[in-house]
């Protein structure tokens, strides 16, 4: 330990309890204490940072000289070009910057005697945050890494509480769930699970009630799954309508969740069908499917060869009125 007397030559002593307390508040993420979110990138003792991994903070006070620390804080890139440490004081008046830097130092001087900064328990996004959005009157479309899907899926959360995963690689709904939408924190904060190091997926906040393992729409033949070409989506009345081509046939599919959160309707629109097409119904345990195409024959719905064909397939929990 260096002598406080020596440090006193360089600055006013920062030993007052309120300085420590204020510094503690700045290190964390709480808006009430003006948290600067240092722990977003730095570990504090055993507590792992929320995202990037900058140097351990708990030992800063013991490890750094005060004057070097001040120069670092005032302009990190002057000392280490290309550092990811932000310059928090580039537009602050010098006296204000110096005061904040001293307050933080007061906390750093406490080392492991300082209570753990607030915010390490916030790894999950708070409901309604950008990482954990809540659908209100419109669907939320979010392209994010998802479980049980290719790396290019689209998560859609709908009013009423039904959400689904549309996979752009296979042009189909992979699964749907009921409850809350999702928490993208693992992908944002790169939370790592064994075997998925640096390759994380969002957390689904509900119960998956529908899974589809097969492609539902067939074109011309049952010998081969049609080649799919995802073309994008547009938002119509608050819900996305996907556009894809199956063996060159344009398909538009808009999915709407029921307000009771128990069914969702897949509304298909095919501008021009010149060959036989079928929709193959999959009814996993506990799921019921109805359609506007009339009764299914052998699990298949015949799609009329025509222009401007529209039909709806409604998927829901078995026994629910659709």
């Amino acid at each position, binding site marked *: 330990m260096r002598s406080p007397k020596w440090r006193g030559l360089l600055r006013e002593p920062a030993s007052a309890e309120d300085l420590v307390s204020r510094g503690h508040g700045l290190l964390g*993420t709480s*808006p009430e204490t003006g948290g600067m979110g240092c722990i977003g990138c730095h570990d504090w003792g055993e507590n792992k940072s929320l995202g990037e991994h900058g140097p351990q903070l708990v030992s800063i006070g013991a490890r750094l000289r005060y004057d070097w620390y001040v120069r670092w804080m005032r302009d990190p890139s002057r000392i280490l070009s290309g550092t990811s440490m932000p310059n928090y004081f580039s537009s602050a008046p010098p006296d204000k910057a110096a005061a904040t830097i001293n307050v933080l130092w007061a906390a750093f001087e406490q080392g492991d005697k300082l209570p753990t900064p607030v915010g390490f328990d916030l790894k999950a996004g708070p409901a309604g945050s950008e990482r954990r959005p809540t659908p209100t009157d419109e669907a939320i479309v*979010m*392209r994010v890494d998802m479980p049980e899907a290719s*790396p290019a899926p689209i998560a859609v959360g709908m009013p009423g509480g039904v959400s689904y995963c549309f996979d752009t*690689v296979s042009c189909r709904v992979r699964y749907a769930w009921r409850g809350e939408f999702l928490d993208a924190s693992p992908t944002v904060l*790169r939370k790592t699970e064994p075997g998925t*190091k640096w*390759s994380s997926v969002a957390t689904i906040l509900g119960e998956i009630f529908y899974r589809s393992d097969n492609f539902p729409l067939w074109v011309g033949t049952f010998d081969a799954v049609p080649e799919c070409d995802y*073309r994008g989506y547009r938002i119509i009345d608050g819900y996305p309508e996907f556009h894809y081509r199956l063996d060159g046939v344009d398909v538009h599919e808009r999915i709407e969740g029921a307000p009771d959160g128990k069914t969702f309707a897949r509304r298909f629109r095919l501008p021009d069908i010149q060959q036989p097409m079928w929709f193959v119904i999959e009814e996993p345990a506990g799921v019921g499917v109805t359609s506007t195409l009339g009764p299914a024959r052998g699990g298949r719905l015949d799609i009329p060869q025509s222009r401007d064909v529209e039909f709806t397939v409604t998927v829901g929990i078995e026994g629910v009125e659709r």
Partner: protein
Amino acid sequence: MKRLLGLLVLAAFASISLAQVPASSYRVENVATPRGIAPEVSAVTFGKDGLLYATFRQGYIYAYNPKSGQWRRFASGLHLPLGIIAGEEGVFFVAQIPELTRVADTDGDGEADVYEAISDDWGMSGNYHEFVGGPIRDAEGNFYIGLGVSSPNAEPRLPIRGELTDRGRIAKNPVKGNVNTIRFYSPTSYRGCVVKISASGKFSPFACGVRQPNGLGFDAQGEIFAADNQGGWVGTSPLHHITEGAFHGHPASLNWDP
């Protein structure tokens, strides 16, 4: 969480003669980022409407009105957008992790309603490092983007997109006999290449041998340059002059040598 102030630096270039004092040729402004959005600005451009459009890591595009100082949301739900260029009014071309996308406001309400896939004809293995650099667009309307290679810290997460190979992933040390993983690899199609996408969406590899080309640009003659990122096999960040068919030195993309 208290909003951290992320700062955008705006450089407004005036057309000046060399005789003028350089200090008057631009000004620097600090712009606070939108409230409630993590200040992770990933790309900026000016739209035809004179507003500044910024993409944010968590999938947003916000428009900033320099006159009023107000931000408003233009688009959301993008998967790590890292590049944006402006088209006609209300239209932007965005490089997001899975796709080159035309994002458009077609009903004029100031918010995008169309997210059209111009191309997604390259591979993805679910690896966090598969960033996409660019886009840039030449005089003929062709787009160019750069496809980053995959980090050795993750294996492909099935099902992947594109063709899958394990070439270049593991190697046996001929002396010690042990098997080890190789730093930064290209498990799926065209990772480690700069690719060309025509205005109609036709995809073709253009040049390979890059690692993580974060920034692409043209010089005054229309030649393409890419700033590559230091890391496995790349000792320090080079600026590559990208020419059609060239190989720029990083071995991972040799899997997809066109």
